C-alpha cells in the first residue's frame, strides 16, 4: 500500500544488509504513447491515432473501473525526468532494484495488445512490446527478464510469437492475463500452451484483462474494490478450467504461474475440485488424476498482494497446505498495492523456507539456479 505510515529507510544504508530477492511481478511502462512506434508498422501508427485500441469494454481512455490513483501506481514512483510510474529504468533501479537488492526482476507489461478486439492490431502490439522489453529494459539491466506477451485470443499467431522468441534468454515466461473471451482451458488457447511447452517456458497468468465477461458470474458490480477482489475468483475459474479441460494432461511439461491473484484460495479450490471430481469424473475422462495433483505439481503462485490474516499461525498453516516451494515473491512495483519485501513475511519462518520464498523458488522455476 502506498500510504506511508513510517519513514522509509534511506536506500544506500540498507543495500548491503538485505539478502537478494526475486521480484516476479514488475510492471514496466511506456514513457510516451509513441514509444513503441520504432517496432510498429506505420499502418498501426495511423490506426492508433484515429481508432485507438478498442478493448472488450467501452472506455477509450482509462479502465472501466477507475483506479484508486493515477495508473494504479504509487504516487512516489513518478520518475524525476517525467513520464508515468514505472517508465524509467534508472529510477526503477534507484527506487526499487538497488535498495531492495532485487537479483531477478520479471517484467509483466500491461496495457499491451492483450484483450483487444482487433486481433491483428493485438498481434502487432504484442510483438512490438516484446522488442521494446529487450531494447529498453533487459539489454540495459541484466537483473531484469522479460515475458513473451502474446495476442491471447488468436492462438496460432500467439504460438508463432512464442516460437520466434524461443531460446532468447531475455525471456523467462509467456504472459497471459486471467480474463479472456473464454476460460483459459478452452481449446482456442491450446496453441499457446503447446508452443510454451516446446520452448520450455512456464506460462504466467496475471490477474486482469478483458474478454467481455462480467467480473462476476452474476453481472457487472459497482466498484473497483469488487473488480480487485474479484480477480481471485476469476483466477480460480481459469485454473479450474485448465485442470478440467485436461491442459495439464495434454501438455505434461507445462508449468503455470498464478500472478497477482492471491494464493489463499488454492487449498480450498483444490479440495473442492477433488471432491466434485470424485462424483463427476465420468464427464471428464481426460482428467485422469485428482485435480489437486496437477495443481500441486504444476502450478506456482506469486505472493503479492500478500495474504494478511490477523494471526501469523494462520498464514503459516495456509502456506504449509500449498507448499513453501510453490510461492514466488513479488512486489507489483510500481503499483499502489505494492508489497514491501521487508514487511510481508512475519518472523518465525525457517531460513530455508524464507530463502525459497524470496528467491530460490523463482530461480529454480525460471531455470536460473
Amino acid at each position: 500500500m502506498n500510504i506511508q505510515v513510517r519513514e522509509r529507510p534511506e536506500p544506500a544504508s540498507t543495500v548491503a544488509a538485505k539478502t537478494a530477492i526475486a521480484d516476479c511481478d514488475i510492471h514496466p511502462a511506456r514513457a510516451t504513447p509513441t514509444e513503441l512506434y520504432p517496432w510498429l508498422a506505420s499502418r498501426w501508427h495511423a490506426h492508433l491515432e484515429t481508432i485507438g485500441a478498442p478493448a472488450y469494454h467501452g472506455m477509450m481512455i482509462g479502465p472501466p473501473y477507475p483506479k484508486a490513483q493515477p495508473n494504479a501506481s504509487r504516487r512516489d514512483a513518478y520518475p524525476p525526468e517525467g513520464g508515468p510510474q514505472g517508465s524509467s529504468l534508472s529510477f526503477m533501479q534507484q527506487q526499487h532494484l538497488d535498495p531492495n537488492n532485487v537479483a531477478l526482476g520479471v517484467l509483466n507489461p500491461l496495457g499491451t495488445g492483450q484483450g483487444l478486439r482487433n486481433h491483428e492490431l493485438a498481434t502487432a502490439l504484442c510483438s512490438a512490446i516484446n522488442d521494446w522489453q529487450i531494447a529498453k529494459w533487459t539489454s540495459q539491466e541484466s537483473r531484469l527478464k522479460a515475458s513473451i506477451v502474446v495476442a491471447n485470443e488468436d492462438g496460432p499467431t500467439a504460438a508463432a510469437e512464442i516460437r520466434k522468441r524461443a531460446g532468447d534468454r531475455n525471456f523467462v515466461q509467456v504472459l497471459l492475463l486471467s480474463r479472456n473471451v473464454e476460460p483459459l482451458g478452452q481449446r482456442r488457447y491450446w496453441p499457446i500452451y503447446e508452443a510454451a511447452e516446446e520452448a520450455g517456458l512456464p506460462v504466467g497468468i496475471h490477474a486482469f484483462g478483458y474478454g467481455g465477461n462480467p467480473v462476476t458470474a452474476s453481472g457487472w458490480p459497482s466498484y473497483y474494490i469488487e473488480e480487485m477482489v474479484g480477480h481471485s475468483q476469476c483466477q480460480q475459474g481459469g485454473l479450474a478450467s485448465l485442470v478440467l479441460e485436461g491442459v495439464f494432461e495434454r501438455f505434461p511439461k507445462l508449468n503455470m504461474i498464478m500472478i497477482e491473484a492471491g494464493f489463499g484460495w488454492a487449498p480450498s479450490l483444490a479440495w473442492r475440485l477433488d471432491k466434485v471430481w470424485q462424483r463427476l469424473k465420468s464427464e471428464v475422462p481426460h482428467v485422469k488424476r485428482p485435480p489437486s495433483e496437477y495443481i500441486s505439481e504444476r502450478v506456482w503462485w506469486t505472493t503479492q498482494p500478500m495474504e494478511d490474516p490477523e494471526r501469523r499461525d494462520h498464514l503459516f498453516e495456509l502456506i504449509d497446505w500449498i507448499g513453501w516451494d510453490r510461492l514466488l515473491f513479488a512486489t507489483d512495483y510500481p503499483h499502489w498495492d505494492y508489497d514491501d519485501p521487508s514487511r510481508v513475511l512475519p518472523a518465525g519462518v525457517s531460513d530455508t523456507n524464507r530463502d525459497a520464498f524470496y528467491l530460490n523458488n523463482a530461480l529454480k522455476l525460471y531455470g536460473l539456479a
Partner: protein
Amino acid sequence: MTAPIAGGVDCDVHPAVPHLTSLLPYLNDYWRDQVTTRGMTDLVSQSYPTCSPIASRPDWRPAQGKPGSNLDDMRAQALDRFHVGHAICNPLYGVQMVFSEDMADAFCRALNDWLTTEWLDREPRLRGSIVVSLQSVEKAVAEIERCAQDPRFVQVLLLVMGDLPLGKRAYWPIYAAAERLGLAVGIHAGSAYHSPPTSVGWGSYHIEDYVAQAQAFQTQLTSLIVEGVFARHPTLKMVMLESGFTWLPPFLWRLHKFWRGLRMETPWVDRAPLEIVRSNIRFSLQPIDAPPDPVTLNRLFDHMQSDELLLFSTDYPHWQFEGDAVLPDGLSDDLVRKIMIDNPHATYPRLRQTVQA
C-alpha cells in the same frame, strides 16, 4: 464419525417439483393455458441435471421420478434418519431462468403454494423458503409479503447467480421486506444462466459449473458487503446455502486488505468485512470442501474465528457425504450443538413461532 444430536435443524433440503404439470393446480387459468398451449414441459436447470451424480446420493435415488420428489423418502432418508426437529425446504426449480417477469412471478407463486400444500401441510417438521425471481423487485416483495403471513416460511430464497450482483441497490426493497418480516435471506447455489456461469466465461462441463458456485458466492459476498446492505439492514441475516465455507477465511483476508486500501470508494462500509460476516452471514454445513482429516478441519474452523457461522445441513438429496456421516470427524459436542441447534435458531427467529395446527 461425529453423531448428530436429536432435535437439530436441517437448513437445506430440496423437495423436487415432479413436473411442470405438478404446478398446474396452483396457476390461474391464463398461465395454465399458456403452459399447455405452448408445450412447456419442465423447468430443469443445468445447475442440477436430474440424473447427475451430485443431484442425488445413489442410495437416495428413487426407482422413478426426480430425487427429492417423495415426502415419505425424505422422512425415512433425512428427517427420521438424522432425528431433526425442523428441516427448511429450499426448492430448486428453474423458475429464475425464465426471462418474462410475469411468467417468472406466476411460477414462483405456484411453487410457493405447491410447497405449502404438498409438503408443509403434510409434515409438521418442515419449514419453507419463499422462492422469488428477481426480474421484478416489486413482484418479489409482494410475494414475500403474501407468503410471510404463513409463519412456516422462514426465509426468502435467491440463487447465487442471477442478472446483477445481489448487493445492488435495486434489490434492497427485498432485504427491507425480509428484515421487517423476520425472514432470513437464503442464497443458494445455482444460476439463472443469464450470465456465463463463471466470471471468465462459459466453460464446457457441468463439473465446471458446480465448482464455480463457490466463486460466485465469493463475489456476491463482496457485493453485499461493499454496497452497504448491512449498514442499512444491520439485523438482516443472510445464509449461504450449499456454498462451501472453507474458502471463507482467505477470501476475507483479501477483502479486508483491499477494504483498508480502498475504503474511500465505499465510505458507508463502517465495519470491517470480517465483523459484518460474523454478525450477518451464515453458511450451511454441506458441502465440506476439505480433506477428511479432523486436524485440517479443526484448523479451518480456527481460521474462521467464530463458531457461530455454520448451520447444519444435509443438502438432501444431493450427494455430499456417505452413510450417516453428515457431520465430519472431530467436532466437539459444543460445536455440534451450536451447528445443529443454537446457530439455526439464532438465524431463523421464525422457527420459534408456534404454528397453529
